[in-house]
């Protein structure tokens, strides 16, 4: 339910309380800064961004061009900063419906337009701020809204109860002991003074625990002192996608609190694109704090293990051809580009880049909360065609990607486009290649 007392899914039933919309525009105005205001006047409509956006490349609809999306946000800016008379209609029903369709439904916040904009406009950021205004009106589409609410209310975005989380860790610990034939192997929880606090994507514990066991195996091989938190283990932050800064800040603050309570030296994030962008970078805007809390991706830690000789890998254990999908939030927006390549070159025998790659890579189509918003699912699969074609061209049989959100979209593309590939995390491939002396 939103603040107007209607469910967000029923935008046709949206009551046009212009007073509320006025407040939302004031809220939008409070989020403006010089970068955003400049952006609205800087776009020269060169149209170059159109060809960079996976939505436009697939559907060729003018509404899918980033410049058009930016123009909608500019319109909000104009309405928000001009005088508004009482009772005057500031945004019509059609305008609100278009905003939800375009700002939520035609953008995965992947940043590819920003990278290619001749004027250097951060279109991604402008769209996220507009999402925040729609969130203020309670118009975050279902699925994304409920994922945010579940994270806020239950401590993780799938609503896993503490006892279920602990029982799952115990179960995986037993499995790992059997696999390694060592009764001393541990998956520690709430271990005070551990060096590393390791966080996961809840979907790993809920449905795909292979990557948890894999991480445990790598930590075991490296002799790491690490721990999970029993309360705050969720690396995700869907507040990034809903545009709600206050919620996003609180979700990131939970991990920092857990690290402080357990006295850990650093937070290590599981493979999660937006979790990395949120907890490594955006958190400084949300919490206005200095970098007093070291946060790294497990990829960076694995590189360190390899370079210091703490783990040994035999690429022959992964003999199938492997390609790599670069998650937007980790790579283009997060700056973590070469680590996954350094690792794969040592963990698999046949590593093949897809094209384009690194910061120029295309979004899988599942980012920006698209995976959660059922309403736009058909569109999501359609725009994923670019990624499906990229994968097919490599002739790889395994697609590796350091992001669980991308993995789920890639699994769907695999089925939809009949790619006949296996989708794996980097951690799983490393665990497979581990050599124990």
């Amino acid at each position, binding site marked *: 339910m939103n603040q107007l007392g209607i469910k967000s899914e029923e935008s046709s039933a949206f009551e046009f309380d212009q007073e509320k919309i006025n407040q939302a525009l004031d809220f939008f105005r409070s989020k403006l800064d010089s970068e955003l205001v400049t952006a609205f006047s800087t776009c020269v409509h060169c149209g170059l961004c159109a060809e960079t956006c996976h939505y436009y490349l697939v559907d060729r609809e003018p509404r899918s061009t980033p410049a058009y999306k930016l123009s909608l946000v500019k319109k909000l800016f104009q309405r928000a900063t001009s005088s508004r008379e009482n009772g005057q209609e500031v945004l019509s029903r059609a305008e609100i419906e278009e905003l939800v369709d375009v700002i939520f439904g035609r953008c995965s916040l992947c940043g590819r337009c920003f990278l290619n904009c001749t004027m250097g406009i951060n279109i991604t950021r402008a769209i996220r701020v507009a999402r925040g205004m729609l969130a203020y009106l309670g118009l975050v589409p279902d699925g994304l809204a409920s994922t945010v609410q579940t994270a806020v209310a239950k401590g993780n*975005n799938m609503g*896993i109860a503490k006892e279920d989380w602990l*029982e799952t860790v115990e*179960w995986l610990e037993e499995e790992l002991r059997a696999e390694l034939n060592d009764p001393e192997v541990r998956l520690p929880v709430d271990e005070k003074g551990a060096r590393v606090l390791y966080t996961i994507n809840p*979907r790993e514990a*809920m449905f795909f625990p292979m990557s948890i066991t894999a991480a445990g195996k790598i930590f075991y091989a490296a002799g790491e002192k690490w721990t999970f938190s029993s309360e705050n283990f969720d690396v995700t932050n869907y507040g990034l996608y809903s545009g709600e800064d206050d919620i996003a800040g609180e979700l990131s603050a939970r991990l920092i609190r857990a690290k402080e309570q357990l006295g850990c030296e650093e937070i290590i994030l599981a493979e999660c694109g937006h979790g990395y962008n949120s907890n490594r970078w955006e958190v400084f805007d949300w919490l206005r704090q200095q970098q007093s809390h070291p946060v790294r991706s497990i990829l960076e830690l694995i590189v360190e293990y390899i370079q210091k000789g703490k783990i040994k890998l035999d690429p022959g254990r992964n003999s199938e051809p492997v390609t790599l999908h670069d998650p937007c939030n980790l790579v283009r927006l997060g700056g973590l580009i070469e680590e996954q390549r350094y690792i794969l070159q040592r963990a698999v025998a046949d590593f093949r880049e897809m094209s384009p790659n690194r910061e120029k890579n295309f979004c899988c189509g599942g980012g920006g909360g698209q995976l959660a918003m059922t309403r*736009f*699912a058909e569109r999501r699969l359609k725009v994923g065609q670019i990624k499906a074609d990229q994968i097919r061209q490599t002739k790889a049989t395994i697609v590796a990607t350091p992001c669980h959100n991308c993995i789920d979209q890639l699994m769907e593309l695999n089925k939809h486009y009949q790619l006949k590939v296996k989708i794996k995390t980097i951690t799983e491939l490393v665990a497979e290649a581990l050599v124990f002396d």
Partner: protein
Amino acid sequence: MREIEIKGKKIKLNEEGFLVNPEEWDEEVARELAQLEEGITELTEDHWAVINYIRNYYLEKNLAPMVRKICQTTGFPLKYIFELFPSGPAKGACKVAGLPKPDGCV
């Protein structure tokens, strides 16, 4: 939103193939969803063991069970769950068992 017809009954599916009204589920619906979503032509006893456990858990708790519970209750190893339902526990097994789509990165 799309509709499938099973023995004259119209069943609504959302854009991702999950039941819009989970209470409309029955074994016929499960067979149809398994065929549509997973390409499973015939549900075996092992499929049913997973489906029935998930369904009953959902009816009792209004939640999907964690994969640990599915494995421990059925006695099937994790790998076998993925063999039974190639799309995995969420978009495979839970969908066939008529549960709504879970929150999160799924």
